[in-house]
């Protein structure tokens, strides 16, 4: 097993996540897509780290995992706040900043 299959797998997961981010209308759905994309990046980091013989990529993965958890907590807090104020989760309806 070389490095290639791992990179192909993570490309596929990244594109599926991007598809979710582009097409979902619900903000929580968009966050789930972002989660998939970050996850595929982690696979990439670990695969490169393993095939390079360096532990740095795995340390980066620890960092990205913690940053993702922080991002998720903040993102969902914002979603809940938006729900409370605007009563909607659809990204199309959140257009207050549009002039």
């Amino acid at each position, binding site marked *: *097993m*070389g*490095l*290639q*299959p*791992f990179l*192909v*797998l993570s*490309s*596929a*997961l*990244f*594109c*599926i*996540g*991007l*598809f*979710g981010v*582009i*097409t*979902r*209308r*619900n903000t*929580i*759905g968009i*966050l*789930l897509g972002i*989660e*998939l994309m970050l*996850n595929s990046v*982690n*696979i990439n980091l*670990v*695969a490169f780290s*393993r*095939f*390079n*013989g360096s*532990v*740095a990529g*795995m*340390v980066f993965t*620890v*960092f990205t*995992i*913690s*940053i*993702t*958890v*922080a991002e*998720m*907590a*903040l993102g*969902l*807090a914002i*979603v*809940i706040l938006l*729900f*409370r104020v605007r*009563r909607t989760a659809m990204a199309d309806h959140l257009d207050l900043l549009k002039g």
Partner: protein
Amino acid sequence: MTGEAVAFYALSAMLVVSALAVVLSKNLFHAVLWLALALTGTAGIFLLLDAEFLAAVQLLLYAGGVVTIVVFAIVVTERLVGETITQTNRRIAGGALVCGALLWLLITTVLERPLATERPIMPDDLTKAIGESVLTRFVLPFELLAVLMLAALLGAIYFARPEE
């Protein structure tokens, strides 16, 4: 095929199917459960890459933590609106075109390049190696991460506090 390759392809198939289910299912709650399956499959991929510690972190933080937070968020928001949230997709053709093009570009690039096929020898105890480099070479990012976590937690509590 070796056992490793069989495990890899089975996990890949599971990952791709569950990822597609995350972005396509109508019911938001089902999407989160599919996401949990995808994250667990990723932990399996980490195990195949000899990163046991990361697989454990993945299961604890992602599949355990993140999924729980999302389920909580869905339950809270559904109670606020008082109805089950369904979600639909829009601009599926355009999105599929963009993502398909990107996927084609990435895969052709990956297949063209000469990439490593052999795994170099790494320390037996990768967990120990990760721990040592977190506290020596990467100690500054590690401390910054602690500040980031604190800021994120304070921010989340501030946003989600009950209305006065």
